[in-house]
C-alpha cells in the first residue's frame, strides 16, 4: 500500500514525473480514473462510482493511506480556452479583474449557474461519487491556473486544431483566469460539502495577477503544467504528511 495515493486524471502526471526524479521519503501510488466516459452511475441513492471502478480504488487504499484527489480540472479550458463569437465577459464578486469593453457582459450569477450545471452533471458528480467510495480522500488539488500569453498557448496546441481553425483566437487572458477561478470556487464548494480540504495551486508557480508563470508551462500541452510545477505540488503534499 502507498502512503499517499493520488486519485484522478491528467494533472496527476506532472506530480508523478517529479516524484520519479527524486527519491521520495514516502511511498506514492496513483490511480488513474477512466478518462473517457464518466465512471459514475445513477442509483436510487444518488450518483455513485461504477462498482468495478470503486472496487479497484478500494484495493489501493490501506488504513494509513492519505488519499488525494486530482480529479478532472480542465472544464474551464473546454469552455473558455478559445474566444466565443460573440465574445463574452463577466464581472466577478471581488471585481479584481478587468472586463473587456468589446465583449457581451453576462451576469456572474448566470455564468456561475451555467458552469455549475455542467460540472454537476460531469466532473463534480465524479468527485462526489469518488469521495463517497473513498472516505479516506482528504484533499483535492486545485488544477493549474491558465497561462497569460495567448501565443504561448497556441504554440503548445495540437497543430491540427490550429490548422482547422486558423481564425480562432485564444480567449482573453482575464476571461480565462476568471473561468479558472470560478472553476476552482465550484470545486472548493463541493469539497467543503464532502469534508475534503481544497489545496490551492502552489503560490510560487503563480504570477502576481494569478496566472501560471510561463516557466511552468507544459512543453506539449496548452492546458497542463510541467514537471517543475508538479515538483512544487509534490512538495506541498509532502508537507501535509509531516
Amino acid at each position, binding site marked *: 500500500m502507498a502512503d499517499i495515493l493520488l486519485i484522478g486524471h491528467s494533472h496527476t502526471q506532472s506530480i508523478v514525473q517529479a516524484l520519479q526524479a527524486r527519491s521520495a521519503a514516502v511511498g506514492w501510488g496513483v490511480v488513474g480514473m477512466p478518462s473517457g466516459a464518466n465512471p459514475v452511475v445513477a442509483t436510487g441513492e444518488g450518483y455513485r462510482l461504477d462498482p468495478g471502478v470503486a472496487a479497484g480504488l478500494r484495493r489501493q487504499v490501506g488504513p494509513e493511506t492519505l488519499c488525494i484527489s486530482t480529479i478532472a480540472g480542465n472544464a474551464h479550458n473546454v469552455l473558455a480556452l478559445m474566444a466565443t463569437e460573440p465574445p463574452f465577459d463577466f464581472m466577478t464578486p471581488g471585481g479584481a479583474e478587468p472586463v473587456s469593453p468589446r465583449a457581451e457582459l453576462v451576469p456572474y450569477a448566470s455564468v*456561475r449557474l451555467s458552469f455549475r450545471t455542467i460540472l454537476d452533471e460531469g466532473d463534480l458528480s465524479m468527485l462526489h461519487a469518488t469521495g463517497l467510495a473513498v472516505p479516506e480522500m482528504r484533499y483535492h488539488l486545485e488544477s493549474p491556473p491558465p497561462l497569460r500569453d495567448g501565443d504561448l498557448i497556441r504554440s503548445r496546441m495540437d497543430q491540427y486544431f490550429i490548422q482547422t481553425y486558423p481564425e480562432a483566437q485564444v480567449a482573453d487572458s482575464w476571461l480565462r483566469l476568471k473561468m479558472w477561478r470560478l472553476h476552482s470556487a465550484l470545486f472548493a464548494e463541493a469539497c467543503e460539502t464532502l469534508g475534503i480540504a481544497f489545496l490551492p495551486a502552489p503560490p510560487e508557480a503563480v504570477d502576481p495577477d494569478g496566472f501560471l508563470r510561463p516557466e511552468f508551462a507544459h512543453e506539449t500541452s496548452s492546458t497542463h503544467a510541467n514537471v517543475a510545477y508538479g515538483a512544487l505540488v509534490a512538495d506541498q503534499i509532502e508537507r501535509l504528511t509531516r
Partner: protein
Amino acid sequence: MRHPYAEAPSYTKWRHAVAAPAMAEVDPAVGFPFRLTRQDRVATAGSCFAQHIGRSLKAQGFAYLVTETAHPFIANVAGPCAYEQFSARYGNVYTARQMLQLVQRALGLFEPADRAWTGPGEAVYDPYRPTVQPGGFISVAELEADRARHLACVRRLLEELDYLVFTLGLTEAWISAEDGAAYPLCPGVAAGRFDPDRHLFVNSGVDAIVADVEAFLALIRSVNPRARLILTVSPVALAATAEDRHVLASNTYSKAVLRVAAETLARRHPEEVAYFPSYEIISGIHNRGSYILDDLRSVSEAGVAHVMASFARNATEQGPEFCPVPAAAAPPRRSALFDDLSRLVKAECDEAMLGA
C-alpha cells in the same frame, strides 16, 4: 313577428355557441379583426399567461420576435435566467402602468429613482424585474450594465415588431411614493425590503388602465407607426389581494376591470387595437373548469392549445385550414470549434496522463 335576434348568427346565441358545441369547438374569437401572416413579427409581453402565447406562436412557425437572447455560453440556463420567456428579458409585466414605464424607460423618457434592491443576502436585484436573475446581481454596476443592455433590446423590439400581444394581468400594484415607478412585485416578496412610507398600493380602474395603454401604444407608434396591439386578459387568478376583502371578490373585480378596459380600447382604436378572448376560452363555463389546474390558478396545456387553435383560425391569414409548422430548432449551444476544443483538451489530458 321579426326581431333582431331572429336573423342573428348562431355564434351570438348561448345555446348554439356555448351550451351545445363540444368543449373544444367553442370559439369566441370569431370576427377577430386582424390577420397575422408568417412574415409579421410578433412580440409578447404581459403577465405569465403571455408566456404560453409566445411559446405557441414560436412552435407554430410565426415570426416570434425575440431581441434579448442568452449569450450562447449560457444557453443551458437560458430558461431559469428568464431569457425567451417573452420577447425581451423583462419578466412578467403585470400592469399597464408597468408596461407604459417600460416603454418610457426604453425610449429614454423615464428613469426611476429606485435603482436597485438589495437582499436576500448580499445580492442586488432589479426592482422592475426582480425574478429574472436567479441569485441576483453581484453589484449595482453589474445590474446597471445588464439593464442598459436590456432596455436597448426592448427599444429594438418596439422598433421592429408588427404586433405586440400584451396580456393584462393585474389591476393591483405597488408603486414608488417618490416618482410613481411601478413594481411588478411588492418589495420584500422576491427581493428588496418593504417600506410603507416609500411603497404605495394602487388598484387601477378602467380609465387609468385605458390611459396607460393608449400612452404606451402612442409611444410605440412614435418609433414604429405600423405597430398594432393585441390585448388579452390573463385567466390566471390573483395569488393574493392587498385589498381588505376576500381574494375571490378582488379577482372578479380585477378581471372585470381589465376586460372592460380591453373592450374600451378595442372599440376606440379598431385599426390599432384588438381584443383576443383567450380569457373567455379558459374561464368560460363551457369547459367546466377543466382548463384550470389543481391549484385553481394555472392554465392547462389543453387550455393553451384551445386558445392557440382559435388564434390560428381567427387571427392568422391561414384561417381554418391553418396547419402549424414547427419553428426551426434553436441553434445548438456548441459550435464545431468548441466540440473540437473539447476533443483537443481530452487529447491533451490523455497525452499528459501517459507522460507524453
